[in-house]
């Protein structure tokens, strides 16, 4: 029979993980459904379960002025993150379209990362901001960029004795950003296509530009190389470069057919969104 461990503090949680592999349960909004059983019976867990939702040590959102970043603890809830003044507006806008109030009151950002779904909406912003994931174990900490931590569809570089402790989001100066989520319903929908883009204009030159797609490839699709080729150029030049940007973006994505949408639709919509993002730079 599997064991259920409700730790009193982070150290207890880490000791538990060190003793053997566990499912790590935060809000439960993904895991409880993935392991769902018939009504009235416990979910089908084949491993021990460690419950970290109520670890107050990990329930924080705070700004680190020295490093100019925001630190988000693994048990802080999406709703709280979306109301924090220091969290980037792009991420707040994305969170407001994840699930519904009932989901956001228990779901966590760390959970959205650990779930590593190709349709994980928050991931698109975390990739753009080059967020880092702090992994904690009894042996200490590892810090990985989000793009290294997520290694594939529902695959992450998390050792069995580790848990996600914190997410570090470096703050960026931004002139404008754009978030588009295409789903079947405004709330509680899993994206068919998503897009986030941001840029910074200084004296007519675009000094920073970042954009990425969600739900149209195994992982968030972002090309730093393509972004770099557009930096420090006047706006008109970037807009004139649109055919190449569309071409490169189309190579970047690999949408699939599934129950939510199909690859033709997804590719068309992704192309339309990046076109409107580039044309809208001002």
């Amino acid at each position, binding site marked *: 029979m599997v064991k259920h461990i*409700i730790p009193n503090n982070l150290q207890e949680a880490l000791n538990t993980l060190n003793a053997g592999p566990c499912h790590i349960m935060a809000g439960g909004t993904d895991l409880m459904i993935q392991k769902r059983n018939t009504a009235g019976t*416990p979910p089908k867990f084949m491993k021990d*379960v460690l419950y970290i*939702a109520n670890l107050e040590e990990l329930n924080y959102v705070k700004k680190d002025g020295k490093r100019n970043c925001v630190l988000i603890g693994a048990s802080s809830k999406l709703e709280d993150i979306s109301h924090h003044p220091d969290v980037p507006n792009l991420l707040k806008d994305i969170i407001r379209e994840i699930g519904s109030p*009932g989901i956001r009151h228990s779901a966590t950002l760390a959970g959205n990362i650990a779930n590593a779904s190709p349709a994980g909406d928050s991931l698109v912003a975390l990739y753009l901001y080059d967020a880092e994931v702090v992994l904690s174990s009894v042996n200490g900490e590892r810090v990985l960029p989000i793009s290294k931590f997520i290694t594939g569809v529902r695959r992450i570089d998390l050792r069995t004795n580790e848990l996600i402790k914190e997410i570090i989001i470096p703050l960026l100066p931004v002139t404008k950003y754009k978030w588009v989520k295409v789903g079947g319903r405004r709330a509680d929908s899993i994206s068919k296509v998503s897009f986030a883009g941001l840029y910074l204009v200084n004296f007519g030159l675009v000094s920073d530009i970042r954009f990425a797609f969600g739900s149209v490839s195994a992982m968030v699709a972002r090309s730093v190389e393509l972004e770099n080729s557009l930096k420090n150029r006047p706006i008109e030049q970037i807009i004139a470069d649109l055919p190449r940007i569309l071409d490169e973006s189309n190579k970047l994505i690999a949408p699939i057919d599934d129950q939510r949408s199909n690859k033709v639709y997804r590719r068309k919509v992704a192309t339309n969104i990046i076109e409107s993002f580039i044309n809208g730079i001002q």
Partner: protein
Amino acid sequence: MNKIKFNLNGQDVSVELDPSLRLLDVLRDHFQLTGTKEGCGEGECGACSVLINGRVVNSCCFPLANANGKKILTIEGLAKTKRYQILKDAFHIEGGSQCGICTPGMIMAAESLLSMNPHPSDEEIRIGLSGNLCRCTGYNMIIKAVQKAAELGAGLW
């Protein structure tokens, strides 16, 4: 077996049950609080909405373990309050309840919304109730009912 303690509808309770059980099942099967409904069972319909520390949560994807130390309010607990009377009257006046299966969840989501925002705009009500589906599609009447409740119950929230 772990002992899990929480406050349920104002009373301190303690249970020795599998901590991975859905809070929904614990409420319905163990406490016989059947006002909380199971609709989709996957967090999309809100029929199972309850309040945890005053905030609406889907009890179908909420493990019992996470209830440890929390204050849980179900429709049965809310029914003893003045706020509920106002919400009930408002739903009656505006025709906000048709077949009734979504109504407990709608009321819990409305209570959560009004306690954080006593005078919500139409848009804010739609977002506050966005996780609750009504298969009778009586949405506009439900939105009006929440507006009516905010009006009738001014000062209560």
